[in-house]
């Protein structure tokens, strides 16, 4: 299996199936773990609704409040930068759209490749910055676990391998593409079992938060 084309086909075939399987299994389990636990009945007299405030928080929590922005500008700016970069690259790069279409049957217009390329480069720089920040900021350093570094490495390798493959810096291309897909597969496999879960559960968490505060009449 040292052959790049064999390697690519392995990653596009059996390994991808495996990754998707583990991912789907794990992620469904994670979400069910949350939903089945549910919430206890609340007998207090509500001041506001839950559904709309919940959904509102799902959206608004993406934007930091001015005080947080002032006190943690790095977190906010760099966090935004690389998250946005990652999402743009993931969802608006034509080959990714083709992949998603094959998996889910959904499709949408993509962005020009040079734009995605630039965004990817910015994402990589931002990711490096987050690592430096994690190592140097006393709070982040204190609360970081090995998992944080593992996840950082996976995300970085995922973006980096995509960048190298697109710019054809690693050759031959089947090897480069295979490496990128392999990174994506490892990413998918660990996703449900690490903090990467937040990609999906963040919506649930924010909703619960917004609903809880909203019930008490606070826009959270």
């Amino acid at each position: 299996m040292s052959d790049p084309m064999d390697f690519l086909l392995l990653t596009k075939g059996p390994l991808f199936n495996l990754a998707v399987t583990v991912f789907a299994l794990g992620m469904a389990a994670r979400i069910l773990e949350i939903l089945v636990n549910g919430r206890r009945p609340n007998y207090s007299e509500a001041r506001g609704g839950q559904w709309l405030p919940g959904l509102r928080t799902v959206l608004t929590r993406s934007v930091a409040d001015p005080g947080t922005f002032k006190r943690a500008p790095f977190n906010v700016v760099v966090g935004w930068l690389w998250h946005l970069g990652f999402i743009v690259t993931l969802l608006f790069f034509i080959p990714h759209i083709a992949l998603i279409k094959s998996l889910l049957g959904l499709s949408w217009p993509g962005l020009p490749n040079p734009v995605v390329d630039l965004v990817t480069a910015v994402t990589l720089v931002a990711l490096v910055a987050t690592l430096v920040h994690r190592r140097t900021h006393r709070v982040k350093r204190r609360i970081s676990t090995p998992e944080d570094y593992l996840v950082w490495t996976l995300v970085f390798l995922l973006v980096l391998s995509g960048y190298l493959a697109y710019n054809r810096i690693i050759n031959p291309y089947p090897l480069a593409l295979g490496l990128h897909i392999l990174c994506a597969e490892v990413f998918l496999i660990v996703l449900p079992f690490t903090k990467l879960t937040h990609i999906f559960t963040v919506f649930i968490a924010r909703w619960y938060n917004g609903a809880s505060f909203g019930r008490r009449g606070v826009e959270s």
Partner: protein
Amino acid sequence: MRVFEKNPLEKGLAERLREHGVSRRGFLKFCAATASMMALPPAMIPAIAAALERARRPSVIWLSFQECTGCTESLTRSHAPTVEDLILDLISLDYHHTLQAAAGEAAEAAREQAMRDNHGQYLLIVDGSLPGPDANPGYSTIAGVSNYSMLMEAVEGAAAVIAVGTCAAFGGLPAAAPNPTGAVSVMDLVKDKPVVNVSGCPPVPMVITGVLAHFLTFGRLPELDEYHRPLAFFGQSIHDRCYRRPFYDKGLFAETFDDAGARAGWCLYRLGCKGPSTYNACATMRWNAGTSWPIEAGHPCLGCAEPRFWDAGGFYVPLSVPTGPASDYLLAAGAVGAVAGAVVATKARGRAKEEAAVRQPVTVEELEQKL
């Protein structure tokens, strides 16, 4: 590698050409065309001329195994040099089923004669895969001899082996899943002789002749990539050299074969083009005397110069799409996962509830004890 030492009386190429009335300018032009064909920079033309002055016709033995004759057909489409120039002036094609006059025993005798006369110096060209040593030899025989035996016998005295076409180079179609005849490539079997793979289904004709011209010109094989393919032709991908690449970069893609994008020549990535992962010379050499090439004629690249391209996902499925039924796995595993998650959560909830039922409330008396 020692070559062309056998027949000192034979004239060099320049002299042979002069004898049929080809002028010096004609010879220089031939050299220019040869440089272009070998994908060498024009600055190499004087060196090529000097080498071709002396070049003699090497003996070439061409074995056809599990093949479709597409590679030979492709060879006959070469316009620089033409197949007639090739077989009359440049090489001595001593065994080739499709072209040779002799048949049956006479044909085999010609092969054996050439192998004896040019022992250690002939070029062995193979097209088609062959059933491996572990497969039933009856799956492919010539003159009652298994392909495997014939290949190994012919390799013994060869200076080098050129595997023409993806079947010979990588197993190709016969080796596609589930490989019903146990087909293998030449490279799988030949370990002690230099092997050049001229892949493609079929190969670009000028790439076949280009490798022969290189051998003829320089008396050695060209520089190879990790798949033993000549770097001069397989060094860059179709995608890197595709004239439609700017559309890829701009994100302009044909969605179907007859839409405005297809008519305007937009990128065929979404129609399944394998150009990015395919290393071949189609984009620059093009086909049939520069007439066109698949992408120019609106069809995505099949990736035919790459190993296992038959099994590399559908031809109309974009390169980034997995080859397996991943979405089925997604659904099935999602369902299983949901059940597993629900079970775990329910179990944990159940335990918490059981504990709550027997829970001992905290009392002030207990708290007081702590004071």
